[in-house]
């Protein structure tokens, strides 16, 4: 199978977020290697991937960090147990196309259109303020709807984490 990252980058200009042939949705997960909130989500992001990837959802980790090398990205992924395909986004091409502001943040595309943008779940209420465990699982709910054949209307929530820095 062609890695999704390549497929997306093949589109001219800003990356077209295409749903690969046969897939029901694409989830971009914006993360940052030195953001503690983003890192604490690693097991949960990986869990989502393992659950929904076999059901026809494509996942891509996006590192919108300037100055992060390919090898540092791979090392970070290995450390945190990520098996989700990952891509660097130093020029914020994915950031702009998806409209992401924060890490961690999820943006879900169906047929090239954003249908969800925001938090993974409600574990964090604000920076430094979290519940013991999440009670609402926004991304999982959206994906469960999609694989069950019900594509929900567009929704946006406030993601809590580290601001994606503007480029110089």
């Amino acid at each position, binding site marked *: 199978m062609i890695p999704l990252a390549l497929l997306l980058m093949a589109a001219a200009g800003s990356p077209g977020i295409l749903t690969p042939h046969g897939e029901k949705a694409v989830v971009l997960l914006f993360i940052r290697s*030195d*953001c*503690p909130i983003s*890192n*604490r*989500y*690693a*097991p*949960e992001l990986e869990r989502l991937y393992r659950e929904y990837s076999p059901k026809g959802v494509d996942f891509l980790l996006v590192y919108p*960090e*300037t*100055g992060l090398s390919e090898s540092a990205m791979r090392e970070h992924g290995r*450390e*945190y*147990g990520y098996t989700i395909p990952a891509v660097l986004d130093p020029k914020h091409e994915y950031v702009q196309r998806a409209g992401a502001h924060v890490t961690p943040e999820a943006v879900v595309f169906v047929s090239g259109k954003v249908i969800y943008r925001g938090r993974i779940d409600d574990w964090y*209420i*604000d*920076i*430094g*303020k*979290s*519940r*013991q*465990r999440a*009670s609402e699982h926004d991304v999982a709910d959206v994906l469960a709807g999609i694989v069950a054949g019900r594509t929900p209307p567009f929704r946006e929530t406030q993601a809590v984490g*580290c*601001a*994606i*820095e*503007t480029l*110089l």
Partner: protein
Amino acid sequence: MRRALVLLLAVPALAQTVTFTKDIAPIVFHYCSPCHRPGEVAPFSLLNYSDARKHAAQIVAVTERRYMPPWPPAPGSGDFADERRLTDAQLRTIADWVREGAPEGRPSDLPPAPHFTEGWQLGTPDLIVRMPRPYVVPASGGDVFRNFVIPVDLKSVRYVRAVELRPGNNRVVHHANIVIDRAQSLRHRDGEDGQPGFPGMDVITEGSPGAFDPDSHFLFWKPGTVLRPEPDDMSWRLDPGTDLVLNLHLQPTGKPETLQPVIGLWFTDRAPTRFPMLVQLEDDGALDIPPGDHHFTVSDHLTLPVAVDVLAIYPHAHYVGKRVEAWATLPDGSRRSLIRIDDWDINWQAVYQYRKPVSLPKGTTVSMRITYDNSADNPRNPSSPPIRVRGGNRSIDEMGHVWLQVLPKKDSDEDPRLDLQEALMRRRLEKYPADFLAHYNLGALCFTRGKTADAVRWYQEALRVEPANATARNSLAAALLAENRQDEAIAQLREALRIDPSYLNARFNLARVLGARGDLAGAAAEYAAFVREQPDDADAQSALGAILLAQHRFDEALPCFRAAARLRPGDDGLQTNLGALLAMHGDIAEAVAAFERALAIDPANVKARANLERARAQLARSGSHSQ
């Protein structure tokens, strides 16, 4: 004219441009870099322009929320050392800088880079102890509160002036308390669930029985802690056989983290002459918070029987705690704030040291009030839906404590801590009339003060609450003995041993009373049972030897005297006793050697000197006789 006006406007505008080197670096170097540097807790470094630029928007987000730098006390609620609160003006400067594109500025404006000591903050410690086995924090899940017992291998009493914890893995340790366990009362719990350590947010140790030895120092660590050694005259005592218990708050990071902290200790030769004491305000017994209650309050107070200097304060609550406040009401009615935290967050609990000690006159009342929010609106509520919350050491339980480290001022020959302890325990009795600890401690206090008849009564009260408490039976026996009530003392000691046959302290005391009463066979049996369990106790070996000697059981007594002298080679009295026994046995040459050892330790030992002369004379006689 018009041109001049333009110039006038332009100059101040230029001067106001916020740059990293001129305006931001002084803030970052002072407030951020101590933790934001390699090897420290913070997730990334903030040591130069490039670091700050990479996190500029994030810096604004966390500072405007006052999440960073972490400084929970409300402004003006206490004058604390190392305050890390940014002023409103500083917050505006940071926001302006980022809004203006986070410019670097002139290199010549840059202040000198901050300097940090690598490794141990005070150089190589005098003693380093390590957690025996590493512990692995899982990648995900709730926070872990765990305790690890670290035995300390000491040959003699030492006085500690500084302690430093090096977690080994700074990212995962949120805060730590080092608890002194003088009686090794928690050792048996370590590993109880198959993993190193044992769970629990708070630990309670048993004090050494009999001795008035209250905790005196906060041994608290959080990331970024600056080590401040105690003045030599305020060091604390570390005895051989003491365990350190590391009480850790660990936070999963997203990947498994292995942890094996080390503790460094710095000693001083000077025994302390000033003794601070930790005073706890609490009313955990009143903690019974209905689910859904937004505003549950617990309070406590103590009127100080002596003048004190408050050196530091440590508030403690768990997740449902919302607001913490402590203050002092002086005898003239004026009120002085000690601390206030309006949005309590256990993640940032800390010991706060006052920049200058807070002097409170005798008769001052110190008070605390803690408010709890056990509703679903409190996002930190560990239970969803909320449940009834009571006092306890699990994360779903609550606590409400304000600890003060105070230095009582002496106004008589007596240790002023005794008055403080008495006031604390009498306050405890007001809160909990049937409290074992208060009765027991009041008994111990009377015993220390020589009021042994009162001690007997308090201990008896304590035993009415907890009849099966062997420690209290043993202490009661000691008080009864001091009152010359030997039969009752023996009965209490036998009862203590019936409750806990392995209670060596009681066995030793029983042997001693029996010996004093002339029941040599009884005493010998108890001492023998003691040394079977504790063969390395020089006092017991020596006492058993003396009893056996009194029974004319020389052959059995000799090994006891040998053991005692071997166990405490620096004790001239034990060497002298051994010599005397060897001489009685006819081993004159060996006896001479023992007396010589005693005299080497203390040349002024009269008994050893006299015995040596006699032994030498005898040696000479037997020598000439055999020729």
